[in-house]
C-alpha cells in the first residue's frame, strides 16, 4: 500500500488532481454567491493565488463558476485566499471573519475558543450562519455569513471585536486579565466554558502547577497579600495546589470589600482566546479559503462541525496526499460506472457533477463536504426568505 504521508515536494503532482476532481467548486460558488440573492456578488469577489515558488497573484476575479474552475485548474495554486467584494470605486463589506491563534501544541485551547466565540456570535450578536474553518495547521477562522454581518460598518466590526476581547497586553504585561464588578454575562458564560476544560488542559496537559517555572508565572498573578505560600510549597499534587488557590480566592471574596476574582482571572489568562484584531476589524483583508491546502502540512482547510466539536481531531484532518491516494484506489463496481458515464454524455455538465460527487465521496473529504452542504442549505433557506420579502416589497404600489 503506498504511504499517504504528506511530502510538500509532491504538491505539484497532487494539486492538479485535487482541483480537477476533488475541489467542491459548485458548493464553493454557491457559498460565495449567497444563493443568488445579490447580483454580481461573485463577479466582484477578489481571489488571490499563491503559486509554486511563492509567486503571488492578486486581484483575480471571475464571472462564473466555470471561469474560476478553469483558472484554478490551470494555475494549481498552493494557497487560495478570498477577500472583500470590490468594485472599482468602493469596497463592499463581505463575510466577517474572526481568526484565533494558539500555541502549536494544544487543540483544547482551540476547542475552548470555538465554543466561547461561537456561543457569543450566536446568542449575543444573533449571527446565525457561522462557518468555522480549520486552517490546516494551528488556527481557526470563523466566517460569519449573515446579511447583517455583511452590512457591518468598520466601527461596528471594531466594537464586536472589542466586546469579544478579554486578554489584553503584550509581553511586558504580567497580568493580562482584570475583572471588576459587575461581571458581565458574556464573561460569566465564557468562564463556564473555560472551567469545563481547565482541569484537563491546564493541570494535566500543560502541567501548570507542576513545573517550577509555570508555577512561578501563576503565582505572579495572585494578589500579594495571599498568605498561603508555605502550605502551597508543601503540597506536591498539582490538583491540590490549584484547589489551594481556589480556596484562597473564596476566602478573599468573603473578606474583601470588592470581589476578588483572581482565580478566574488566572484561568482566563491561560485559556481565553486571543483574537487577531486586524483580521476581524479589516474589510479589505484576504483570508485563507476553505478547502485550500496548507502547503506545510498538506492538510485541507476543512469546515468544522461545531455540534461535534469535541470529536474533532486536527490530526485526522485529511491531507491532500491522502485524498488523492483514496481517489486512485480501485473500487468494486467501477466498470458499471464507466458504462453509466457513457450514457450520460448527453447531459455533460450534470455528468461531470455526478462524477465529481462520486469522486469525493470516496475520500475522507466526504464528510466535510457534506457538512458544508448542510451549512449552505441553511443559508439558502434564509436567503429564500429574504428574496420573498424583497419581491413582496417590489409589488407594493
Amino acid at each position: 500500500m503506498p504511504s499517504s504521508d504528506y511530502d510538500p515536494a509532491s504538491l505539484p503532482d497532487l494539486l492538479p488532481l485535487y482541483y480537477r476532481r476533488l475541489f467542491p467548486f459548485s458548493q464553493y460558488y454557491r457559498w460565495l454567491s449567497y444563493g443568488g440573492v445579490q447580483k454580481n456578488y461573485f463577479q466582484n469577489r477578489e481571489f488571490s493565488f499563491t503559486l509554486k515558488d511563492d509567486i503571488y497573484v492578486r486581484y483575480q476575479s471571475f464571472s462564473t463558476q466555470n471561469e474560476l474552475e478553469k483558472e484554478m485548474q490551470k494555475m494549481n495554486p498552493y494557497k487560495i485566499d478570498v477577500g472583500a467584494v470590490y468594485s472599482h470605486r468602493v469596497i463592499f463589506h463581505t463575510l466577517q471573519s474572526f481568526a484565533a491563534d494558539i500555541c502549536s501544541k494544544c487543540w483544547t485551547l482551540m476547542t475552548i475558543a470555538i465554543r466561547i466565540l461561537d456561543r457569543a456570535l450566536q446568542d449575543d450578536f444573533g449571527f446565525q450562519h457561522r462557518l468555522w474553518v480549520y486552517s490546516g495547521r494551528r488556527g481557526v477562522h470563523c466566517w460569519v455569513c449573515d446579511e447583517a454581518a455583511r452590512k457591518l460598518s468598520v466601527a461596528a466590526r471594531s466594537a464586536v471585536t472589542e466586546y469579544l476581547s478579554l486578554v489584553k497586553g503584550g509581553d511586558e504585561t504580567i497580568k493580562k486579565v482584570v475583572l471588576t464588578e459587575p461581571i458581565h454575562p458574556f464573561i460569566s458564560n465564557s468562564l463556564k466554558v473555560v472551567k469545563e476544560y481547565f482541569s484537563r488542559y491546564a493541570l494535566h496537559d500543560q502541567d501548570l502547577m507542576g513545573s517550577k517555572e509555570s508555577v512561578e508565572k501563576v503565582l505572579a498573578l495572585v494578589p500579594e497579600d495571599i498568605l498561603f505560600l508555605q502550605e502551597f510549597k508543601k503540597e506536591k499534587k498539582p490538583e491540590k495546589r490549584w484547589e489551594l488557590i481556589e480556596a484562597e480566592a473564596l476566602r478573599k471574596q468573603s473578606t474583601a470589600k470588592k470581589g476578588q476574582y483572581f482565580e478566574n482571572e488566572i484561568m482566563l489568562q491561560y485559556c481565553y482566546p486571543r483574537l487577531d484584531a486586524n483580521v476581524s476589524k479589516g474589510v479589505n483583508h484576504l483570508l485563507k479559503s476553505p478547502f485550500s491546502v496548507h502547503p506545510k502540512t498538506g492538510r485541507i482547510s476543512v469546515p468544522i462541525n461545531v455540534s461535534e466539536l469535541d470529536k474533532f481531531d486536527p490530526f485526522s484532518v485529511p491531507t491532500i496526499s491522502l485524498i488523492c491516494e483514496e481517489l486512485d484506489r480501485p473500487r468494486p463496481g467501477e466498470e458499471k460506472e464507466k458504462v453509466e458515464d457513457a450514457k450520460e454524455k448527453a447531459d455533460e455538465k450534470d455528468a461531470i457533477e455526478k462524477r465529481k460527487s462520486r469522486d469525493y465521496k470516496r475520500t475522507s473529504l466526504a464528510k466535510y463536504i457534506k457538512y458544508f452542504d448542510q451549512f449552505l442549505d441553511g443559508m439558502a433557506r434564509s436567503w429564500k426568505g429574504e428574496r420573498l420579502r424583497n419581491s413582496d416589497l417590489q409589488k407594493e404600489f
Partner: protein
Amino acid sequence: MQFGGRRKKISTNPQSELYGQHLQFYGQPPLENISLSEFETFAVERLKLLKTVENLGVSHVKVSDQYKGKLESQLKTLNFPYRPDADDKKSQSGPTEYEKRRKDHISHFILRLAYCQTEDLRRWFIQQEVDLFRFRFNDLDPKQQLPFLHKNNLHYDTISSEEKIELKDQLINSSFGFSGIKVMEHEFYKVPFQDALDLVRLRKVYLKQGYAYIPHQDIVTIVLNDFRTRLSKALALTARSLPAVHSDERLQPLLNHLSHAYVGQDYSIQKNVGKISLDQIDSLSGKSFPLCMRQLHQSLRENHHLRHGGRMQYGLFLKGIGLSLEQALQFWKMEFTRGKVDADKFDKAYAYSIRHMFGKEGKRTDYTPYSCMKVILSNPPSQGDHHGCPFRHSDPELLKQKLQVYKVSPSGINQILELVKGMHYQLACQKYFELTHNIEDSSFSLNHPNQYFLESQKLLGGGKDIKREMDAPQRSQENSASKGSAATQEVAANTSQHLAEMTEDLESFFQEA
C-alpha cells in the same frame, strides 16, 4: 390578492404630520414659499435662541432648574415651541402652536445654510442644536418619547416586565449600579446592537440575539448621538448646494451676517477709526483691555520692544479697536525708538510689517485680530515672549501675582484660578472682566479680545458710536436670557419693524469693507 398591511394616509399636508410634536429631527426641509422678511426674522430669532443656549450651557449645569427656567423663558419670548403639551385647541393670544412649530422648522433649515460652510461653524451649530434637542426631548413625557422615536425611524422598544424578570440577573450584571429593584423600576429599551456601539465596545450593556438592552438613562445618549450624526451628515450635504444659494443676491448678505454673528464678528472691519487717541491707550489698557493685551502693553512700555508674536497679537488688536495706520506707525515707532531701535532701523525693519497688518503691503494674508481661540491654541509663547493668553500660558503663581498687582481681590483671584484649573480660560477672563468692572454677571460670552474691549467701553459709557457698532451683529448677544425682560421685549417687538432698517444697515456694514 392581499397586499401587506399598508394603509394609505389621507393627509393633505405632510408637514402637519411633522408639527405633531413640539420637537423634531428636522429630516424634511420645508417646502413652502415664505417672504424675505419672514426668512430674516426667523433666522435672526433662532440665532438669538442658539446664542442663549450657548450662554446658558456655559454658565449652568444643563439639567438644572435654573437652566431649564431660563431657556424656557427665552423660547417663550421668541415664540418658539416650549411646551410639549401645547396645542391649538384652546384659543390664545399671539402665534398659534402650529405657527411656532413651523417657525422652529423653517428657522433651523435657514441656519443650516449659514452654518454649513466651515468646520467651526458646523461644530458650533451642531452643539447648540443638540443641546436644544436634549432640553426638548427630556421635557417629553416618557410615554410620548417612544412614539416620537418610532415616528423617526428609531425603532426602540421598551421591554415588558415579564421580560425584565426573565432577564433580571443579566441586566443587573451588565449595567453598572443596577440592583434588582432598580431594574424593575426603570425602563429598558431593546435596540439593534449596531445602534449602540459605544456601549457594546466597552461591554456595558447586555446583548441578546443581536439586540442591546439599554436602560433609559443611556437611551437619551443614543438618541442624541443619532440626532448629532444626522445633522452632521445633513450639513455636509447642504454645503454642496451653497454655490446655488449664494448666487441669490437677496440671501447672501443675510447668510454672511448670520455666520459672522456667532463669533460676534471678527473685527476685521474697522469702525471708529481715529476715535481713539494715542494718549488714551495707557489708561484704556488698565480699564478696558483684556489681561493678555494689558500684559502686552505693559511689556512694550517696559522693554520698548515686543517680539513678533506679541507685535502681531497686540498690533492687530489695536487695529481692531480703531487705531489708524498712521497712529499705529507713530505708536510703535515712538516706543521702539525709546529702546534699542533707532528711527531708521524702525522704518526699515518694523514699519513694513505694520503696514502689512493694515493690508497695505504684499499679499493680504490673515490680518484679522486674533480671537481667543486663536490666542489660546496657536503659537504658544516661549522664553522672552509676552503674547498668548495669560490664563492659559502663565504659571498660576505668576498669574496670581499679576492679578494682585492689578488689585483683584483675593477671593476673585481664587475664583479665577479655579476656572484656570478647570481649563476654562475664557471664563476666567470673563471673571476678570466682572471683577475689574465691578459687576456680578457679564452678559456676553467672551470669545474675542476686541469684544472684551467693546463690552467694556459700552459698560463704561463709551459713547453712541460704540453702541451702534455693537447693535447690528451683537443684538443676539445682548438678549441672553439672564439680562432680563426689558431689552428683550423691546427688541423682539421692534424686530419686524426694524428689519428693513437692519438689512439696510447690514448692506452698508459690508460695503464699508
